[in-house]
């Protein structure tokens, strides 16, 4: 079940998605965090951040909108939480956010001495912060520049987290790799909105929010396929994964590992259950390692020919 992403060895390919798992402490009372491949912690900024005013959330069909606005205690306070996570001896990936390259860099500088930090996930795709945030994720030139600058700030692996709210995700993916990304993760949330018919106004105080959950899975699978076909670095797939079946689909589409976000809210045990489910799938189908199913659907796809209009043209 082990996988290696950007030089980091993981016991299995299942991570918690950033922002959906706090700093791990809440879910530690449900299961042993060692059962995870990695814990990806909440988006962390250099300074403490109060986040957006409420309401911050709205349920939608098969998913939810959030506009948390990167509420977090700041990198200095996050240090303590990350150190506490060491008890579980599970790789910790820090999700780094900011409104400028300098702010991203500051987070890394404040945390880089921590042995507990296995890698950084650079969130260039949060739709809920106004200055910067999403802008970083949609302009390839800015992405190359940002990644290059952060590359200079640390020897630890850099995972760049891509936004789905772009015309061509492979352009941004290539830019991130050009800047020096060791791996890519995708997708962050789709920008959405909810209207409260009774109150005749938007539900979210922030107006828009990020859509996550099973509803977005088809978009996520498509982008994972596209990006893993376009670049040579490993891809961490996420977006609507709610169990082993979904996870296997992402692996087959080309992801080397997966992360689970909103599904934790519905089922706090979804992460360990997914680990077990993938393991059972591999055993039942005679696969010796996770690697054997990474991109499997692409191999099958290439083999498909035209059979009188049945299947691929």
């Amino acid at each position: 079940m082990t996988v290696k992403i950007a030089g980091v060895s993981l016991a299995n390919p299942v991570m918690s998605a950033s922002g959906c798992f706090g700093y791990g402490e809440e879910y530690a009372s449900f299961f042993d965090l060692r059962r995870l491949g990695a814990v990806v912690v909440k988006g962390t900024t250099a300074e403490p951040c109060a986040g957006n005013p409420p309401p911050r959330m709205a349920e939608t069909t098969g998913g939810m909108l959030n506009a948390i606005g990167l509420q977090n205690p700041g990198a200095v306070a996050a240090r303590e939480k990350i150190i506490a996570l060491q008890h579980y001896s599970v790789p910790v990936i820090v999700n780094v956010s900011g409104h400028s390259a300098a702010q991203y860099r500051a987070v890394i500088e404040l945390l880089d001495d921590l042995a507990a930090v296995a890698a950084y996930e650079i969130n260039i795709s949060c739709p809920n912060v106004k200055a910067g945030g999403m802008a970083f994720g949609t302009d390839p030139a800015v992405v190359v520049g940002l990644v290059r600058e952060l590359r200079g700030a640390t020897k630890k692996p850099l995972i760049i987290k891509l936004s789905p709210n772009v015309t061509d995700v492979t352009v941004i993916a290539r830019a991130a790799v050009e800047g020096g990304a060791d791996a890519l993760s995708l997708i962050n949330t789709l920008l959405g909105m909810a209207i409260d018919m009774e109150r005749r106004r938007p539900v979210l105080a922030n107006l828009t929010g990020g859509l996550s959950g099973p509803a977005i899975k088809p978009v996520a699978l498509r982008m994972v396929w596209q990006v893993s076909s376009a670049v040579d670095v490993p891809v961490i797939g996420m977006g609507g994964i709610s169990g082993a079946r979904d996870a296997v689909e992402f692996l087959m589409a080309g992801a080397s590992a997966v992360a689970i976000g909103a599904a934790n809210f519905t089922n706090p045990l979804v992460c360990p259950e997914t680990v077990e489910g993938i393991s059972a799938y591999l055993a039942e189908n005679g696969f010796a390692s996770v690697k054997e199913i990474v991109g499997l659907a692409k191999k099958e796809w290439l083999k498909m020919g035209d059979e009188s209009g049945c299947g691929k043209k």
Partner: protein
Amino acid sequence: MLKLQKLEIIKQESVAPGHQRLTLAKGINALAGQFVHVRVSETYDPFLRRPISVHDCTEGRLVLLYRTVGRGTELLAAKKAGETLDLLGPLGNSFPLTDRPQAVVVAGGIGAAPLYYLLRSLKLAGKQVSFFYGARNEAELILRDEYRALVANYSEATDDGSAGTRALVTHLAAPVIAGLDATVYACGPSPMLKEVARLADCYGRSCFVSLEAQLACGVGACLGCVVPVKGREKYRRVCVDGPVFAAGEVFFC
């Protein structure tokens, strides 16, 4: 002691139009003010759990009282005795007891749900309790006989005068809050809470309110359920920092 478990539904009663009381098999021990987070469907529509307060709890047997307001609560109401319910809990903090021997409890509508267990807890702790129960009309004074049976000082208010005094429940409670050195507890709609908080502040009573918000995780991880609070912190989570807050701490929207 966070627990995810499936408990059998022992009883599912319609106690008034649009209001259900659900009794669960033994398995969760909760304090007054806490809640459980219920998965109402095995599919992803609806996607999120639904938070329901503990209406009563004896020896690990939970009772829930809820209003069917949308699809989630309707799916919950459709479940029958004998089926199991997927539950997370007990979650949240609880109503604190103080050293004051007197308590004033104010309920607005379905906000009464968690206060039944509070009333029982206050009585067990030997407090003298005054209970004010307000609703739009008689029909919405859910389980009024059971509440009335619980406390000596029981008063009712309805918007239309169909039961008790035709007044806002806060108007009924005001003189008592003013005159009695009691701890004040309240659960109900935001404007009611705001007024109870104002009265309590005015007369220097300590006051605790139970708040609602749209929840996702229910365990403190997603930061989705915050309410604005006074002071540097700015926001606190309803699911773990609440649902019970000191009235002076929060802003009422």
